[in-house]
């Protein structure tokens, strides 16, 4: 039906063109020219979008294949937390791809199994995931006339992949595990509340003390997850008395990360200085990303400028109209305000269609973090990479100023208020020149300042 409608539309267009051609040749070529111009505009649009989307696809593959424990560092407000949110989406996509590709592979192996029936059986049961799986597997066991129990769907046999033997019912068990993971909407564990655009849900809470395996805490983590630990230096800094340096087993968590989650989870953390993380843990981090800068690209800046121009014309006319109208006209909702809002919304929409380009230096060795890399000196251990991540995956995902709440506590502790401060008088501006030329050791001897030790454990 759809094809017939398309065919009819095509014939209609051809007939219209023939009629136009007979009426006026100039009109005909004008219509054809406009159509070609329209096609060219669309062609350029799709080509530019595909270019960005290919970079986005490359970023997914690059990040997921590189490492499982990664550190993101960079200057203040360089875009570390924004990159962290973007990376969580890249890895969510990778997780979904991994789950569905493995499910498809198992479906290809177990050709005797009716998977739709298995899924129905799984969904009909209630209780925990393990109870459901046990119930499904029990339903697949039948007794023959001799009283021997066996699996239906040929699940009792083995599958040989030219390398190892696998039990087919184990594969079915794995399939049900994967199905459970595919139904999840909580792939992200984060200390800061973060939204996930792909699962339409917020992240689960991540408490760093759960990583301290020797303290026998809870362990609510699961496979196919992404752990986001923003500002790691707050709970695991190597500056004495500012963090921790005890033997709590967190390093074991990072050391065995790949094996614990069978290379199906990722751990990302941000630090302003990668060397401030305790040595036992930071050495395990497989890769370090140093965010140099982040740019907004693909957000149609020229169209935005045209909209700005329309807005300025709109404001110009509005000011003239206001002169002839009464005073209340400006207070009410009017046509010009509606146009202004429409333009603003269009500009916001165009921004949301853009991408953010994170210009990163990637290092294998922590000692090199922050050092500049030349174009010709790039290798697998030290190189540059530009992550291209869509704007909706980076902006508005979580609160990048999550620690802003600290300011309220500081206000409570403070006895001074901005309003109580006086302007700088000449007395306050007076500089102690003698103090400037006095040695630090002499000041300590004379008791002007107390000796301060700021020990750093390497």
């Amino acid at each position, binding site marked *: 039906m759809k094809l017939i409608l398309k065919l009819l539309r095509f014939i209609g267009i051809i007939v219209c063109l023939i009629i136009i051609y007979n009426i006026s*040749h*100039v009109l005909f*070529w*004008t219509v054809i020219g406009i*159509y*070609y111009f329209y*096609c*060219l505009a*669309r*062609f350029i649009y*799709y*080509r530019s*979008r*595909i270019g960005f*989307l*290919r970079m*986005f*696809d490359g970023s*997914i593959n690059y990040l997921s294949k590189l490492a499982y424990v990664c550190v993101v560092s960079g200057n203040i407000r360089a875009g570390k937390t924004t990159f962290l949110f973007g990376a969580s989406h890249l890895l969510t*996509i990778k997780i979904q791809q991994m789950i569905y590709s493995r499910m498809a592979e198992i479906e290809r192996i177990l050709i005797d199994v009716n998977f739709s029936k298995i899924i129905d059986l799984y969904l009909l049961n209630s209780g925990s995931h393990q109870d459901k799986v046990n119930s499904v597997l029990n339903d697949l066991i039948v007794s023959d006339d001799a009283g021997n129990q066996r699996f239906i769907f040929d699940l009792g046999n083995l599958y040989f992949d030219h390398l190892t033997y696998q039990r087919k019912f184990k594969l079915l068990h794995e399939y049900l595990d994967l199905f459970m993971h595919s139904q999840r909407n909580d792939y992200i564990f984060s200390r800061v*509340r973060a*939204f996930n*655009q*792909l699962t*339409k849900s*917020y992240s689960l809470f991540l408490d760093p003390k759960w990583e301290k395996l020797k303290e026998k805490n809870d362990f609510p983590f699961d496979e196919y997850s992404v752990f986001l630990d923003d500002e790691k230096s707050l709970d695991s800094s190597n500056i004495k008395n500012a963090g921790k340096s005890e033997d709590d087993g967190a390093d074991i968590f990072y050391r065995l990360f790949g094996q614990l989650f069978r290379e199906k989870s990722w751990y990302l953390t941000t630090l302003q200085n990668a060397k401030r993380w305790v040595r036992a843990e930071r050495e395990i981090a497989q890769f370090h990303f140093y965010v140099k800068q982040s740019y907004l690209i693909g957000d149609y800046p020229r169209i935005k400028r045209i909209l700005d121009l329309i807005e300025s014309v709109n404001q110009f006319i509005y000011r003239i109209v206001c002169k002839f109208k009464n005073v209340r006209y400006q207070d009410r909702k009017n046509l010009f305000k509606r146009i202004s809002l429409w333009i603003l919304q269009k500009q916001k929409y165009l921004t*949301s269609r853009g991408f953010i380009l994170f210009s990163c230096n990637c290092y294998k060795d922590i000692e090199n973090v922050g050092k500049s890399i030349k174009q010709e000196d790039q290798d697998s251990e030290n190189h540059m990479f530009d992550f291209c991540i*869509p704007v*909706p995956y980076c902006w*508005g995902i*979580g*609160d990048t100023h999550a620690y802003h709440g600290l300011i309220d506590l500081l206000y409570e502790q403070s006895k001074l208020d901005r309003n109580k401060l006086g302007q700088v008088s000449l007395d306050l501006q007076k500089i102690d020149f003698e103090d400037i030329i006095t040695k630090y050791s002499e000041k300590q001897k004379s008791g002007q300042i107390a000796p301060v030790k700021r020990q750093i454990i390497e």
Partner: protein
Amino acid sequence: MTIYFIFEYLKDHPFVKTLVIVIIVILIFVLLVRIFSRFLQDLDYLSGSLKRHFRNLFHLIWWLIKWLFTIIFLPFATKKLKNEYEDISYYFVNNSRFKDEINT
């Protein structure tokens, strides 16, 4: 006035002839840009082998044919590109409407 002359010119010429002229003009323009941007690189041809030279020539001819067909069948090329875009943009989603009203 200019538009009028263009229309007059188009009226007296058959469609195929006009199309060929337009394509040749576009190709000459693109080729000029391409050649001059790679001028320094092309100097290296002198030290290259004949095989390499022919291979580059083949790629250039292939590039020309590809774009010639793309320009002639632009609506179909656009349709093909749109299909590719729809496939590749599968993971570009914006579900911000599902966020909590008070987000932070």
